[in-house]
């Protein structure tokens, strides 16, 4: 399926798509999850992948970053076939997680600094690396907590740390798997504003969402999956992505539908 070229990728045509997935099939165990998915994301686009639980949307993004091997089809990142792709510092990945904590405490800064490994193979943190981590933490409003333990954070703050970790890579392409899952409205707003900033400086974004929520104004295009197939690729659907889908959980951030972020009235 050919994608719509968004208004923002206005540069002259010959450019390679950032993500090009063609006829992708994949299975988890014995279950076929993707049955021939086409997904093209061009430079500067913000594409939301929508669908009910089990529709394959998460598997689709995980296959794009190589977490799920494709059993068929083709994948190119930045014009390079996936097998030969090595420029990981161009990608910031936010896996689907409810927590950033492990069995040992770690500070917010330590977790976010892991993102710099995409750029500093030998792991020395130079001044520029520290500055990038600080900028990433500031973008999601977590700088005041930099030295706090992630174990002490709320669910929404965990998600902000995971996004800061991806932003610390200073990527051209952000891939996020359900970044809004289990995140309250106030935290969703922080994430939306971080994303808005990234988009304004030209980042390309592919994200899995359950519903558009406060991100709706940012989305250029929505791809809706059902049962491992693309059933919609175009402008964000009015209701299709949200209420028409079976099994969506009723988080209702409708107050944020206009482009303006919520002001302090609601939050303080």
């Amino acid at each position, binding site marked *: 399926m050919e994608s719509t070229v968004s208004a923002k990728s206005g540069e002259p045509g010959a450019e390679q798509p950032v993500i090009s997935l063609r006829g992708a099939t994949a299975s988890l165990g014995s279950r076929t999850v993707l049955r021939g998915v086409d997904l093209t994301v061009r430079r500067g686009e913000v594409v939301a992948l929508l669908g009910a639980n089990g529709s394959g949307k998460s598997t689709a993004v995980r296959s794009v970053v190589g977490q799920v091997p494709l059993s068929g089809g083709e994948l190119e990142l930045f014009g390079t076939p996936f097998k030969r792709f*090595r420029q990981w*510092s161009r990608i910031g990945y936010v896996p689907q997680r409810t927590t950033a904590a492990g069995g*040992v405490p770690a500070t917010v800064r330590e977790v976010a600094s892991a993102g710099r490994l995409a750029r500093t193979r030998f792991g020395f*943190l130079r001044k520029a690396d520290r500055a990038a981590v600080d900028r990433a933490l500031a973008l999601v*409003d977590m700088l005041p907590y930099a030295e706090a333990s992630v174990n002490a954070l709320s669910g929404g703050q965990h998600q902000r740390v995971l996004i800061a970790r991806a932003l610390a890579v200073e990527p051209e392409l952000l891939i996020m798997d359900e970044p809004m899952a289990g995140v309250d409205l106030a935290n969703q707003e922080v994430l939306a504003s971080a994303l808005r900033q990234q988009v304004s400086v030209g980042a390309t974004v592919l994200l899995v969402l359950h519903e558009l929520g406060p991100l709706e104004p940012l989305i250029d295009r929505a791809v809706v999956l059902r049962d491992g197939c693309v059933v919609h690729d175009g402008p964000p659907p009015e209701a299709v992505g949200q209420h028409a889908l079976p099994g969506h959980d009723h988080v209702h951030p409708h107050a944020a539908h206009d482009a303006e*972020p919520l002001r302090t009235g609601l939050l303080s």
Partner: protein
Amino acid sequence: MEFLTPAFMQRALIAAALVGITAPAIGTYLVQRRQAVMGDGIGHVAMTGVALGFFLQTSPVWMATLVAIVGAVGMELIRSRGRTSGDIALAVLFYGGMAGGVMIINMAPGGSTANLISYMFGSITTVAPEDVTAIAILAVFVIAVTVGLRRQLFAVCQDEEFAKVTGLPVRALNLLIAVTAAVTVTVAMRIVGLLLVSAMMVIPVAAAQRLTRGFMATLALAIGISLTVSLAGTVTTYYVEAPSGAAIVLLAIGVFLVLSLVSAPLARRRAKAARAASEVCTGDDVKV
């Protein structure tokens, strides 16, 4: 300082210091990825190596290292496959290693299960000069890996999926962790013993995190605690007739309990401060 005079005690203290540093150094990563039991499994498997060393009349330390590495790599492969039957495969490996060790040692000329005992629980009188050399070489390897690659290993143990997308060679690093854990087990075997080595990978880390907020801080404090109790335990068994591993582990548990008691009010205060801080910050402003 009378305990410093005998040569065997000097060797035992060097070995104890190296155990004290290496066990929590790798243990912190194992605990981080909630794999604390791995050290225990390797310890069981290494018993076959020790017995093989006796049987073939080569060095038990190097033979144990070899077998432990094979076992650890096997465990890592089972783990990374993520099969549901992995549990059972691990059990087979653990108990196969232990049973194999007991079987083989009894087949060795003049060998009996009693030979294994000092390897199971540690003993300060059995650290031979060539053991000290072997332990020192292995310990240097463990320290080089756990300190030199700390940021990479932290990333892999904290979130394997993310680490992969930063382009880190995750599979190679996982195998390196397994090999390093195996090497640590054989470093620790003379002083702490194969059945108790896992305790020194886990308990100092658990004790340290009662006080710490960060990963590197936990790593450093765990090494400090472990080094202290390893030396103290070794000295204790110079005066008290007992396996050194038992004394060291009991001391470590003592430190853990004391720090738990001390830290409870601290944690409460910290949680309160965090709550207060989050109230202030959420209300601050939402950036456009």
